[in-house]
């Protein structure tokens, strides 16, 4: 009761740090049977929870970190890549999540879990001749796969141009008449897929090949003028998770335009209404007992907790080569750690992982591409 009053009567919106921390701390160990539907996504649960904790600047006890490493090691497939759970087949989404989670932990134990040679074999096994990737052997194609592959390959230093041959053109073919990107060519522009395609191109150094102006127009138009949050597609409803998938595009586009010689970019703000997004998240997306959510009336879950907090961080922190400018709605205690707009883990963890893996040679390929 008192927390409800707190949210709706105090002059300042408050991030319910302690409540979110307890929710996350518990979930990292135990989940109710309501989570049976995510039994093939357990590395995701690790990532969503660990990333939320790192944004809240809550330390991960060494014992817990080690347990996560050992669990993710059991999720690693003998043929490379990570699966949704022990004994399952490898899949690019839990592979992305596992590598990110291990990089958040950032210990040698964590880095050593990843079998880089086998990971490269796995990526080759899901690569398609047209440049796309299937999500798993015998599985579906969409632009998420390119992002997952590019993310893990770049972080662990197994990326070669050959691995991503034709991938750039395939991703570019996903930009449509709306200016955003679709899951596969021909479909409607969608925030999640647009983020994946754009971030993948940034990793490949090819983001300039997009129609950046059209993409910029599309994404800024996805911020809802009344709610302040973002919708995933034109004429659909707001959802807290798009606070990251959509708003996270603005730092990427800012940098892309800067590299293209754009001289009129702001040096203080992203090209979305940062305060309004923070208001939406803090006033509409928090569960009083901990965890964040899509919109009022929906249930909390770890996915929305991760992406609402990630979006809040994007809205709080502006940074380019030379400066860092903060806009914190409410008390200073609402401040989250900054997040890297490409990988969505903290920038220090990205740098640390790159430094670690760049010391190692890129593995030789031992298998042929899949069909």
């Amino acid at each position, binding site marked *: 009761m008192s927390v409800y009053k707190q949210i709706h009567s105090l002059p300042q919106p408050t991030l319910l740090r302690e409540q979110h921390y307890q929710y996350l701390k518990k979930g990292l160990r135990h*989940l109710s049977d309501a*989570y*049976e539907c995510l039994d093939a996504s357990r590395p995701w649960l690790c990532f969503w929870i660990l990333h939320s904790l790192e944004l809240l600047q809550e330390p991960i006890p060494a014992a817990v970190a080690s347990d996560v490493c050992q669990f993710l090691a059991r999720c690693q497939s003998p043929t490379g890549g990570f699966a*949704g759970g022990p004994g399952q087949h490898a899949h690019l989404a839990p592979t992305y999540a596992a590598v990110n989670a291990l990089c958040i932990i950032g210990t040698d134990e964590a880095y050593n879990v990843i079998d880089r040679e086998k990971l490269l074999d796995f990526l080759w096994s899901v690569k398609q001749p047209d440049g796309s990737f299937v999500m798993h052997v015998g599985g579906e194609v969409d632009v998420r796969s390119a992002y997952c592959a590019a993310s893990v390959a770049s972080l662990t230093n197994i990326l070669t141009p050959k691995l991503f041959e034709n991938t750039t053109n395939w991703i570019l073919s996903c930009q449509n008449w709306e*200016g955003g990107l679709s899951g596969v060519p021909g479909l409607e522009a969608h925030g999640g897929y647009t983020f994946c395609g754009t971030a993948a191109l940034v990793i490949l150094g090819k983001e300039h090949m997009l129609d950046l102006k059209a993409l910029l127009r599309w994404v800024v138009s996805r911020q809802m003028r009344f709610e302040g949050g973002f919708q995933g597609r034109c004429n659909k409803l707001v959802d807290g998770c798009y606070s990251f998938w959509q708003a996270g595009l603005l730092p990427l586009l800012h940098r892309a335009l800067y590299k293209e010689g754009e001289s009129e970019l702001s040096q203080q703000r992203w*090209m979305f209404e940062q305060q*309004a997004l923070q208001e939406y998240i803090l006033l509409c997306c928090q569960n009083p007992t901990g965890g964040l959510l899509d919109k009022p009336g929906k249930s909390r879950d770890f996915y929305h907790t991760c992406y609402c907090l990630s979006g809040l961080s994007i809205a709080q922190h502006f940074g380019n080569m030379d400066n860092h400018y903060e806009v914190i709605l409410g008390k200073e205690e609402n401040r989250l750690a900054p997040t890297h707009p490409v990988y969505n883990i903290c920038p220090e963890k990205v740098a640390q992982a790159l430094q670690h893996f760049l010391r190692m040679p890129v593995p030789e390929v031992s298998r042929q591409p899949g069909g």
Partner: protein
Amino acid sequence: CVTKYINRKEWADLEPVPQDDGPNPVVKIAYSEKFSDVYDYFRALLKNDEKTERAFALTADAIDLNAANYTVWHYRRVLLQALSKDLKEEMKYITNIIEEQPKNYQVWHHRRMVVEWLNDPSEELRFIADILSQDAKNYHAWQHRQWVIQEYKLWDNELEFVENLLEEDVRNNSAWNQRHFVISHTTGFSDPAVVEREIQYCLNQIRKAPHNESAWNYLKGMLQDRGLSSQPGLLERVLELKETHCSPYLLAFLFDCYEDALENITQKEKVEEEEQKETLRKALEICRLLAQEKDTIRKEYWEFLGRSLRNKYGNGALSDEPMAENPEPSISASQSQEAS
């Protein structure tokens, strides 16, 4: 209540395999007894690579408990082939599963595989239409629909299908996208008669629902490759609408027309410098109007566009005069500021 596998005589020969989460599990799910029972036996089947009828039956139970388990779906497909199962029956099965769980990746991918194996798309358009009647924007459904249409060349009635959906909800952006999909893969947008018909269609929908962003986006999206100012009379028609059917989308469209005009003037025709200045002035006025009054949520964006346009086409850009100063205040590094 169904008997657990552990208590079924026909399964007594198989030793269930418990999940190996390790000694100190994380993200440990409190599975129901039913869930653990089925998956312990699934793991046993997988371990032995068993390809039997009972294995096939078990996959249905495993799917029922977690339809997102892609390992189970893959195994089911292996069994469908190894046991030469009746794929028409499988179509019935997957139809029911999708009706229950239409927002799951695996179920749609499975249906696509079965349709491919049968080489029979005859039920697809009707089935997808039924799913769309329950959720007209289901992304998986549209993806499957586009695949079927493209793979089996079923274009003939799709524009009519789209128009019906737009009749029901003119704001259905998925339907607008499908419209673009059908036309670009059939007549294309090069035919002037097609373009004129589509412009007419858009303007009619805009008159009925002026604040429908989809219609405006479609109008722009269709014309942008050729350039908005390439369509004679369009600017005038939009200016007419401005009086009675104004919206932030109309204003943005006008801005885009002016920007396109500036883009093309400087490249091709000899135009009065006055006329160019006037176009720039009108474009900048719209930016200001949108940033400050009509579309303030996008203030940062409209102000950026205004600065960009001024920089590119403004006073200093066309002659040797020095450029106007960037009106933004300069800031020092690592500043921090609380919003109100």
